[in-house]
């Protein structure tokens, strides 16, 4: 295939595969914990981190990671201070992220570089960012596998899990860090405005056809890979933004699955 002749496309496919493996995996827990909007809020915070990195001249993926880590802990703190309105913490962090991003973007040297984070720049990833994304992706995937069962238990019921010997605090802490890391690397590749779609659409699609939790995980990751890689191929041949193509394929798949399973009477 022609696209394999290009170094930037080979690199995009590697990064796309990494992102497609980790985002739906983390997305499954986010969806089941009813925290899908957290990824949206964090992706906006990652924009602020990117802008900061571009202003001060540091690797923007690194500053996005730092910003997301700070945001995820801030969100948790706010949630504890306002337990009755816990979901407002997401709105506050999202607002803060987009506000900071808007102001900091005025000070960036390269507006093009900043804009690449809005809809992703998977086909234009420099060496240092490429290595960082692969390292972070491998770290997230490893920790996800180690905590897979604990995450299942905590997502199902925290109180039961604590009494049954699961370290709920550690599991939640690790999950927050994994979410922040995942969103940071996905924001650079598929785009900050699109990352929450990749975290939810493969999972929602998987939930409609899978027969178990484990199967949902596998189907979601497989669909994430399908959306991402086919989006990249389409962007190469039709000259469209890869992030947009990935999300539209995801939405189309989900709608088709709704239609198919609805006919079968499966109200999932």
């Amino acid at each position, binding site marked *: 295939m022609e696209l394999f002749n290009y170094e930037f496309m080979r690199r995009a496919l590697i990064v796309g595969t990494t992102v497609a493996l980790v985002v739906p995996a983390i997305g499954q827990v986010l969806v*089941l914990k009813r925290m899908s909007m957290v990824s949206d809020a964090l992706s906006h915070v990652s924009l602020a981190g990117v802008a900061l990195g571009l202003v001060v001249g540091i690797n923007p993926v690194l500053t996005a990671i730092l910003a997301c880590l700070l945001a995820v802990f801030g969100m948790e703190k706010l949630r504890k201070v306002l337990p009755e309105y816990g979901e407002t913490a997401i709105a506050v962090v999202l607002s803060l992220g987009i506000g900071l991003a808007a102001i900091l973007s005025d000070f960036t040297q390269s507006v093009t570089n900043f804009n690449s984070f809005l809809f992703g720049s998977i086909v234009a990833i420099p060496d240092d960012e490429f290595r960082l994304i692969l390292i972070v992706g491998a770290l997230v995937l490893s920790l996800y*596998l*180690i*905590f*897979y*069962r*604990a995450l*299942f*238990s905590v997502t*199902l*019921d925290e*109180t*039961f*899990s*604590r*009494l*049954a*010997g*699961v*370290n709920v605090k550690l599991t939640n802490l690790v999950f927050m860090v994994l979410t922040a890391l995942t969103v940071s690397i996905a924001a650079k590749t598929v785009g900050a405005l699109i990352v929450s779609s990749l975290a939810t659409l493969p999972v929602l699609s*998987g*939930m409609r056809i*899978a*027969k*178990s*939790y*484990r199967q*949902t995980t596998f189907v979601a990751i497989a669909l994430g890979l399908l959306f991402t890689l086919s989006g990249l191929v389409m962007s190469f041949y039709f000259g469209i933004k890869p992030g947009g193509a990935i999300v539209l394929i995801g939405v189309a798949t989900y709608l088709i699955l709704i239609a198919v399973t609805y006919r079968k009477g499966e109200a*999932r």
Partner: protein
Amino acid sequence: MKLGVKGKNLRFCYQNRCIIEDTDFHVDPGEFCVIVGANGSGKSTLLNLLCGVSLPQAGQIDWVDETGKTMDPKGHVAYVRQNIATTHAGFPATASEILLSALNGKTKWYRGYTSANRNKVNAILNQVGLSEMGHTRISDLSGGQIQRVFLGQALMCDPETILLDEPTSSLDPAFSRKFFELLKKINQERGTTIIAITHDMALAREFADTVYCLEDTSIVQLEKSQIEEELRHKHSHPHKEETHGTL
């Protein structure tokens, strides 16, 4: 081993309102205890205190075995939360996966579930009347069946005590009775202490060894005559479902 619980001089208040004040409470090891009370009286708060979700602002809660030795509830007490059949109806897991997840706190991440684990799942599914449903997603089960799946999850831990927060709230009267029959069977056959919240005074009268009522920041043990009086009042005022008067 059987496990009971003792609460002494308990106090727990929210910002504007006290739920429990200077109150004692005890459930003997192996007892079937039911807690009743009006909506908002603090039944769920009491259960949260017992399982350590909340801490009392004064007083002390001790889990004790038959010899009076204090125990850590972790690994000995299981909890079935309120409205679980409603809140988890869409969870994409099978009944077997949910039962096996009860072992996650004790199983190393790199070890698979053993055939002994799977045999235990089958035995418990059989006990809760879901022997054919192990590979069925809980979204395809009825509210009563989901409730039994989560009771099965609790049984997987071999708990000495099971705490249940309104386990029959989403079930019709016939299923509620069947569910309490199952709890009684577990209580008698395994010696498991049961502490369950319910609004159904008839179930409390029929199945419980002890009935406690939460009212006016106190936990009062109800005598049989008081339960009968409550049921008589309910029959004469069928639209009133909650406890009333002095209870």
